[in-house]
């Protein structure tokens, strides 16, 4: 651990940002072996993006497997997979052109203004996503029925590089942006930096020197529901059971997610 992985990935990021957007390719890698199910990523996302009450763009699912005393307990973080063939875009843009954009660096971006104006486009996008990665902003605040509406809910946030408040996103459907506003500031996505198991990696897959490229070369990775042809940009490293964690295998994930 000579260099911290976060620092290394930020250096990777600097190199990527120096290039034209079209020549970088953002990907996320999640190492399930290191995911401890602590939800730090989910809470970080809620705070960073002022997610609607009760939602986060990142969910950590969990499931038991096998019987006592040989039970296993798996944790599975999931968010927008930033598909290269995004079903949400096809569905939403059919209703309202420009509702969903695919950026050249791979990020799938929702145009909240269009989404808010076209509830059917929003609904279509949400329904189309096979990853349940899209949340609705129905308005409302965590603290609205309490003695005080708290300022962390009404504050400005910077999703997609825009200055927004919850008033701007009411009615829209929302999702993970790979924290593009942070990327542009040379910072990694909030879920990646906060992960206490260091299970998450992010960077430019087009840069062979980047940590993500290194991991994609070295580890057996797997993409969720890849048989759907969605071409996700989130890669997973899985394991079969707790008795042999170090042996990365996609098999256990495929069992449920294909």
């Amino acid at each position, binding site marked *: 651990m000579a260099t911290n992985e976060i620092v290394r990935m930020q250096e990777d990021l600097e190199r990527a940002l120096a290039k034209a957007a079209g020549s970088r390719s953002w990907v996320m890698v999640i190492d399930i072996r290191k995911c401890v199910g602590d939800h730090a990523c989910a809470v970080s996302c809620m*705070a960073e993006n002022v997610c609607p009450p009760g939602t986060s763009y990142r969910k950590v699912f969990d499931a038991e497997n096998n019987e006592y005393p040989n039970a296993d307990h798996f944790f*599975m973080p999931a968010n927008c997979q930033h598909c290269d063939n995004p079903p949400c875009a*096809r569905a939403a843009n059919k209703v309202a052109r420009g509702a969903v954009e*695919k950026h050249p*660096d791979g990020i799938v971006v929702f145009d909240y203004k269009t989404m808010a104006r076209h509830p059917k486009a929003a609904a279509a996008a949400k329904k189309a996503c096979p990853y349940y990665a899209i949340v609705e902003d129905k308005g409302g605040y965590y603290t609205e029925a309490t003695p005080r509406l708290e300022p962390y809910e009404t504050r400005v946030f910077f999703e997609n590089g825009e200055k927004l408040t919850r008033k701007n996103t009411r009615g829209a459907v929302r999702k993970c942006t790979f924290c593009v506003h942070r990327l542009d500031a040379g910072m990694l996505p*909030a879920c990646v930096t906060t992960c206490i198991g260091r299970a998450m990696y992010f960077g430019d897959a087009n840069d062979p020197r980047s940590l993500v490229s290194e991991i994609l070369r070295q580890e057996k990775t797997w993409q969720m529901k890849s048989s759907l042809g969605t071409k996700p940009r989130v890669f997973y490293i899985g394991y079969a059971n707790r008795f042999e964690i170090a042996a990365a295998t996609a098999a256990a994930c495929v069992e449920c997610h294909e």
Partner: protein
Amino acid sequence: MDNKTKRCELARIAEEKGISRRSLLKTGALLGASAAVFSKVDKAHALLEKIGSDRGAAYPLSRAENVIYSVCLQCHTACPIKVKILDGVAVKIDGNPYSAQNMIPNLAMKTPPHVAARVDAKLCPKGQAGIQSLYDPYRVVKVLKRNGPRGSNKWKTISFDKAIDEIVNGGRLFASIGEDRHVPGLKELHALRDPKVAKAMAKDAKAVAHGKMTVSAFKAKHKNNLHVLIDPNHPDLGPKNNQFIMQCGRIEHGRKELAKRWLKGSFGSVNFYEHTTICEQSHHIAYNESTRQYKKGKWGKGKHHMKPDASNSEFIIFFGTGFVEANFGPTPMAEKVTDGLATGRLKVAVVDPRMSKSAAKAWKWLPVKPGADAALALAMIQWIIANRKYDEKYLTAANKAAAKAVGETTWSNASHLVRIEADGPGKLLRASDIGIGGDEFVVMNNGKPAAVGKEAITGELDFSGTVGGIKVKTAFTILKEEAFSRSMAQWSEICGIGVSDIETVAAEFTSHGKKACAEMYRGPVQHTNGYYNGQAIIALNMLIGNIDHKGGMTTGGGHWHEDGSKLKKPFNMKKMHPGKLTAFGHKISREKSAYEKSTLFAGYPAKRPWFPFSGNVYQEIIPSAADQYPYGAKALWIHKGTPGFASPAGQTALKILADPGKIPLVFATDIVIGETSMYADYIFPDTAVWERWGTPHTTPDVPQRASKIRQPTVEPMTEVVKVFGEKQHCSWEAVLLAISERLGLPGCGKDGFGPGMDFTTREDFFLKLMANLAWGDKKGQALPDAGRDEMKIFHSARSHMSRITFDPKRWQKACGKENWAKVVTLLNRGGRWEDWSNKFAASNGTVVHKYKKGMNLYAEKVAMQRHSMTGERFSGIAVYEPVKDAMGREINDRGYDLKLITYKDILGGQSRTLPTDYWLSAILPENYILINSRTASELGFRDGDMAKLVSASNHSGEWELPNRENKPMVGRIKAVEGMRPGVVAVSWSFGHWGYGAADADIDGRKVAGDPRRRTGLCPNAAMRIDPALGNSCMTDPIGASSSFYDTSVKLVRA
């Protein structure tokens, strides 16, 4: 749940929603749509290029001017945090990248703040949700006075000054609500005020307690001052000042030192408390007794805490704890373990009746029977000894020089001889006992007894015989005999783990040289046998001699001292207390005092137990006051704690608190109306942890030296009050200073720290600590001065604060102008950390910061002490004991067939965080009664059913809440595979009636509680009331941990 494979929720949702793969594939085949997407690409491309750099500039949270570093306290791991501020509001909390707790390796101290601002370090979800504990709509911001019976949650707001006047002067304070009694004020309790008299009385009272002076001689000598004593016939109870008690929950360094300085040195009461015995005190006490050093005929202090060097370990067995939840703590520990798991460097075993999130990653999950940890450890020890897998070289080295000769930095008393008395092992043999020297310990060397002096000497490990007519055994032999006192099958039966699993784990533990650890925290020790469980686990570590080794157990990197006592400058705080009083007398909890060394000694049993080995015996304070043993309490200050909720059988404390006749004055400093502060007469609003100062210490899990600092990040929300003529936000410190102002207490106010050094605001104290940290412990450790750029950042980052909170001139005066630029460097980084270097990276050899001292396999002090109730001697070696009450009688609650344990979810702390922080409760809105699926179906319960917890000491299954509605302990059954059959687990954090859960009446107006805060259950009221005491939970007689996991319950359908 059926017992087939439970499929991942994501897959399950897909099935429920009826979205088949085929329909998705069909959607995916709409190529026309995707063509439309890609037609957008070029346009978007251009857009991104154009605004790329502007976007970064448009993200203010990446700028150092929007960052203040401080420390979290959502749990006591107290992680350094980076608080990001936007328009004066704390909007996002991340880990501090300078901190070795949050970043491995951490950013070097020389890294400029504007660079660090863009590096976010890791932080657990509780820490991040600090935003919501800070901006909690139920924060108390004005002083509240009770306007109904205690606990009724009826209040009126009153001015700070009036409230302080009332608690200081006393009077008929509640006449307006029909309570005609006189409430004694603190003035009445401030009886002993003369430092000279106090010092003289303290010395003689101690002499009386130790039987070295008679009571009548004391009375004669102090005849003019006997009126200040609680009881002149028992001078060792101390002065009336002791009847003022400060009971703190989560208090930390900085405030802790100030609290002791004030309560003991300024007010003259010994009764300052932390909450440690409801946490994991017996673990600390087990370590302390294992590490006491013998010098000049006395056992000195020991170390309280060791942790695995998990970055380099190859095997760790976690007893009742882990690396993901609770412990010390997830943020620093998780990564070290997950890194090892993924690379194959590390295997872990987890001993826990519940499959914790740590056990989810364990190669061996050992679902032990609650409280049988010592049985498991002793079984492992039996296997290790039988198979000679212990480190003989380490264990035979009898002193420092011998250790050095075999390349060790620590040694043990495994080979030291112990005298065997009629009632068991007693004192360690001394050379003088057999005429071969003085006070040295003795070993068998080449068949002859030899004194353990300074020269290197080894001792026979396994020896039993007679030396100089005295029957002796080595400490190792005593342990061996205990380990072999039962067969492996018998141990297996007791602990509920199969013999082959025990053997496999013992073999694994001894297959990695020094790179294996037996780690523990709360699980094994919050039992009546907690201390012994702890000792058995520590013995495992001693058997392989892993202390100070890379990958072994370590005492951690330590810290620079904030009290200035090392460098003696700039502020040697301990010497800066003019007019300091000497507080004396037994504490109300009878901790740190032996029953036999008191004038109350009247044979066994004592009226309530005494705790000579432990401290901060939280659960004993209020019940002892009620029993007036050793004396009654007149005033109780409850601070940042909730003894009536967080202690096992906490309802017993509430019953006492509800009766003003028991403790006439109760006031609290709290950030909300909590479960216990609801029973106070007054609540003073405290500043939240993000609004105040502190100097929390670092877990030994961190290998580098680290001093972290808490500082205000935002303007405190509490009302502004005036104390000593200075405006300040109401806080714990303001209350303390205001009482001092009224009573004229020494060490506070004008010249409080010495001539020209006033103590009139919190900054006067804390900024001196900051200056000490900036200078370090030795010459040459001073931090560099902040330059112009850093000064600018420092001021800009605080531009949202009023002059009351941030007054640069005032701050400079408090810390000394000459120290200011160094202090700014410290504050700009949230503390100071040793830079990472190759020596920390090296995976072999010994750790950088070493313990370098002896370990006691045999704890002589413990062996020589008698149980204050049974009169029997304790054991100096780890033993297995069943659950016992205060009288030493075994508990057997027939008809209650389920064992109750608790745990903390990673999202929850003890009484805060869940469900009051809404981001966290969005993920976990309620807790459950976790139960093995087969046990559930045997009992006729299904997953999702509601059930009530009932125990032998709580038949109703309710929290009996005086002066308000009872709260049933009802929760949802969660039937899982990851539970030991016959055990139920309920997580902490839920089941509130305070903390915004209930409606309050303030100034005649209803403040509605939030139903989201009422969810789930708190199981503590089911926990066993000690049948011998009747008004408190059961307690470990040595380590004084309260018993959390020894209760048998049954589930009643609800």
